[in-house]
């Protein structure tokens, strides 16, 4: 059942021009950022004396920033991917198809959520070409490219869950995208809130809630169980909220 919903969603997504517009736009912006970072690095390193060039680390200056920038772009792209996922079903009345069939709310949510993840993987796949360019450079450690992508996928999954939640709250796609953006921005800004407070305990809690704190560890190739637990708990909590929302059977 989950597979039927997943494949239907993917078929609809890949038939829509929106998929290719988003992918094209995303790829273009990522390419432009990567090119600029690379040029900036080359420009800067030439100004540094040869003896000191070892201190100017390529991984820190280009690769880690590259992941950070993709992560930032996902803040804007994810709401575009998720805005239709439930809203359109409410608006067109197609949600009743599932309610009058043998589909449980869990199957519906998982089918749709997995389809969004596959769509996200498709978008991220367009950026694989940039690390591929770097294969000519003798990087001392490439593991952080691998873990960086895992971090991006996990971040996208969390954003997607928030996007799906926003989409389940309204039948208006634009409103859904806007709500998703605000929700994602909110968990982004937790680090800032943590820095603003003087209470140590509160600051630690906010810092733990912030998604970027955990993402940083992945990009630096430091994978902790606590980070994985954070992502899993976050996604489960949001999916349960969507389940609760769909159980209400009333749309705004």
């Amino acid at each position: 059942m989950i597979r039927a919903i997943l494949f239907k969603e993917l078929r609809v997504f890949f038939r829509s021009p929106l998929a290719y517009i988003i992918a094209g736009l995303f790829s273009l912006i990522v390419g432009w950022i990567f090119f600029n970072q690379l040029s900036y690095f080359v420009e800067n390193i030439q100004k540094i004396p040869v003896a000191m060039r070892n201190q100017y680390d390529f991984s820190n200056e280009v690769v880690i920033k590259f992941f950070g920038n993709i992560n930032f772009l996902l803040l804007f792209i994810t709401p575009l991917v998720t805005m239709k996922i439930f809203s359109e079903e409410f608006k067109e009345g197609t949600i009743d198809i599932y309610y009058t069939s043998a589909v449980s709310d869990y199957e519906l949510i998982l089918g749709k959520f997995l389809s969004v993840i596959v769509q996200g993987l498709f978008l991220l796949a367009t950026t694989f070409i940039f690390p591929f360019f770097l294969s000519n450079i003798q990087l001392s450690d490439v593991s952080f490219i691998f873990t960086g992508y895992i971090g991006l996928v996990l971040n996208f999954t969390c954003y997607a869950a928030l996007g799906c939640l926003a989409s389940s709250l309204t039948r208006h796609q634009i409103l859904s995208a806007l709500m998703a953006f605000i929700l994602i921005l909110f968990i982004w800004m937790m680090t800032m809130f943590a820095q603003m407070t003087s209470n140590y305990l509160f600051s630690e809690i906010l810092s733990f809630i912030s998604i970027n704190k955990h993402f940083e560890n992945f990009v630096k190739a430091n994978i902790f169980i606590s980070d994985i637990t954070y992502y899993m708990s976050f996604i489960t909590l949001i999916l349960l909220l969507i389940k609760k929302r769909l159980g209400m059977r009333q749309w705004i």
Partner: protein
Amino acid sequence: MSKAIEVDCVSMTYSRELVLKNISFCVNKGTIHGFLGPNGAGKTTTMKLLTKVLHHQTGKIKILNQDLSRPDQFFYKKIGFLLEDPPLYPDLTVTEYLHFMAKIKRIEKGKIQKHISYCLDVLDLINVKDRLIENLSKGYKQRVGIAQAIIHMPEIVILDEPTNGLDPQSVIEIRNLILNLKKEHTVLLSSHMLHEMSLVCDDITIISEGRVLESGSLESLQEKINNTQEVIVELADHNPQFEQYLSKHQTIRHYESMQQDEIFRYIITPNERVELRPQMAKMAIELGASLLRIDRKEYSLEDLFVSVTGQHD
């Protein structure tokens, strides 16, 4: 006759408003049951309750003798539902859509193709099976909507205003399709198009402002309103003596007169259930009136509808 659907004293509040007020009616197996009412009467809400899209708050609903509050896992196989706006995915072809619907209705893998072929055949969709749904006409979209409602061969098919917004040719085609469905399914059909209902339905339930006003077979309801014995008399010229007779005669409660294209028409209501026609014919001739027509007034479903909703107001 055994019952397919039994609704007993069901009430429902939606957004703090009481939209269904203690409604009760039955749908017999193997019939086409019309659910008639003006817009906003509660037809769609009732249909959503029957399909468990919404949950009822009070009262009892039985589908094929099974309590709806405790449905078994096969409940969804027994009912097919078409909403007022067919729930379609415009980016899928007709076959892809029906295949998806077959899967989520849990039809066995080996039987899916057979069920799709049946739907394409019954609803005459073979010519458009590979076309994207967004490129279909409204009439064809409606057919695809009906196809998804019957793809799992349910015993009960619930259709919410299936002919709404269609051109006359499509209305006739959909009407014939609905009559065809009666061979295999029990059909509950909602509409505010009274003429349509009188052509396809065996039984009718009239609902207005969340209340059931009348429910029964089409014949019994028509009989009920045709029971008044009103008589229409048409004369070719004005005859004051005839009018004087009508106003003085004891068996006549009242009469209405009107003139249209040189024809003088009288609608005469008797005091009690008496056959007025022989007496009226005799008097018209005796008084020298040029009699054109004398007949009992027949009421249509429209009259019944206006009559019961009017009483309620």
